[in-house]
């Protein structure tokens, strides 16, 4: 479904971020990418959503070369990929409801769909009572759950989670991971990057380890080994 084909990223000052990385991800897989800071995890994910271009190599989503998409096709493509971040990235002057509704509006969904789906998806992340709160009125864990709700509301094929628990306490971390598992069980491919050894070890899913821009391990039922 997703295939990184010999991808390299080298900046102008010759610093190598990614060095000929190749791996594939199957539909409905739950893949964790681990590695020390600066290993290139985030760059790898940014390439998948066409935020960054590889210096050489290709990234395929199904049969489309992601970096061959025209500028006008990129928004449509991104609606098939949900993404959450360490810093949540909610729109500050929109309520929880509006943040999620915005993703649906951008995808051109009808008002009826928005009115029925948004409360539903907020219920899924257990935030039905905070529907009209602004981000600054929510705790970190709640913000991340709104972000997850926004990422999945358009039923994407893939959910990318870039260190989603980096700013959360252990209790909220556990919650978020449970939600990600649930989403994966419902049939969405999940790609997770994290530093949290506990999460990786408890998941018992595929783990790709990256170090200095290279894949050093790729285990089907991996542990956090560095």
């Amino acid at each position, binding site marked *: 479904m997703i295939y990184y084909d010999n991808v390299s990223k080298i900046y102008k000052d010759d610093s190598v971020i990614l060095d000929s990385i190749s791996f594939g991800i199957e539909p409905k897989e739950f893949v964790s990418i681990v590695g020390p800071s600066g290993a290139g995890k985030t760059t790898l994910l940014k390439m998948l959503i066409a935020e960054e271009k590889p210096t050489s190599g290709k990234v395929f989503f199904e049969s489309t070369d992601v970096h061959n998409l025209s500028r006008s096709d990129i*928004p*449509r493509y991104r609606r098939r990929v949900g993404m959450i971040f360490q810093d949540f*990235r909610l*729109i500050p*002057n929109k309520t929880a409801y509006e943040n999620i509704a*915005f*993703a649906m*509006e*951008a995808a051109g969904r009808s008002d009826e769909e928005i009115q029925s789906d948004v409360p539903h998806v907020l219920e899924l992340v257990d935030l039905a009572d905070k529907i009209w709160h602004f981000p600054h009125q929510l705790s970190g864990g709640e913000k991340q759950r709104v972000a997850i709700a*926004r990422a999945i509301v358009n039923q994407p094929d893939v959910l990318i989670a870039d260190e989603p628990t980096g700013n959360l306490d252990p209790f909220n971390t556990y919650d978020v991971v449970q939600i990600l598992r649930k989403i994966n069980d419902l049939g969405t491919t999940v790609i997770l990057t994290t530093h949290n050894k506990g999460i990786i070890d408890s998941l018992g899913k595929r783990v790709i380890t990256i170090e200095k821009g290279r894949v050093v391990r790729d285990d089907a039922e991996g542990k956090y080994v560095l």
Partner: protein
Amino acid sequence: MFKLSAQRVLKAGFVNFWRNAFVSVSAMLVMTITLFTMGSLMFLGAVLNSSLLQIKEKVDINIYFLTSASESRILSLKETIDALPQVESTTYRSREEALENFKKRNQDDQLVLQALDELGGNPLEAVLNVRAKDPSQYEAIYNFLKPYIVGPTNATEIQGQIIEKANFNQNKTSIETLTKVINSSRTLGTAISIILIIISTLIAFNTIRLAIYSSKDEIAVMRLVGASNMFIRGPFIVEGSMYGLFSALFVLIIFYPLLYWIGPYSAGFFGGLNLFTYYLHNFLELFVILVGSGVIIGAISSFLAVRKYLSA
């Protein structure tokens, strides 16, 4: 689909305008200053124009005809002059009228009246007063008249030379100076207006750019959730247009008491234009220009400012 997007863009624009009230107010303050400058320059231009018009009206040439010239020939020359493209209007005063006026003016002065009787007949000349459409055209009119003017030596009519003198040469320098003053003040006025308008537009543009700079993370998020560029840009353009619209309305409102106060003073000023009356009579034009420029500046500024964060 398009209708739905347009509705959503409009609604988002209104909501953002309201929720970012502080940013909106500061952007509108700067826009108000910009539009106020524009409006003031328009009023200044009106004052300048009416002053120039009045100065122009003070310029004319008088043609004095020989007393021996027959009235029918004078009138036929008048018709020819009337037909010249440079001529705005002519006023003819016959010898009889001149005499009557003279008598009326001196009715209390027995000495002058006696002298007039002594002379017998009518010593006064017929006069044709000519006004040109533009002061620079008097020269051409004078050149046209030249063949009709008698030479300095013979004071009698030969070969259709019926004009004794035309006072162009006396007025020549002052007419030329005036033409220069009028032209250069108009050029200077336009240049200053253009420079001020450009400066204030840039300031307004910069303010909106700063306002949108604070939304740059928001724009990045919108792109990540797959919003198309137009869908992201739309609400900002609506917001920018609203800054322009409200600022223009505000400026139009503050001009009312301001001009009500200034009006009588301006009427006493050279040119005699009452700015308050001018404001009332040209309200529609002012409204269209100020609201139009406000909305256009706001919309274009927003468009350009957002573009920067969409291109990455």
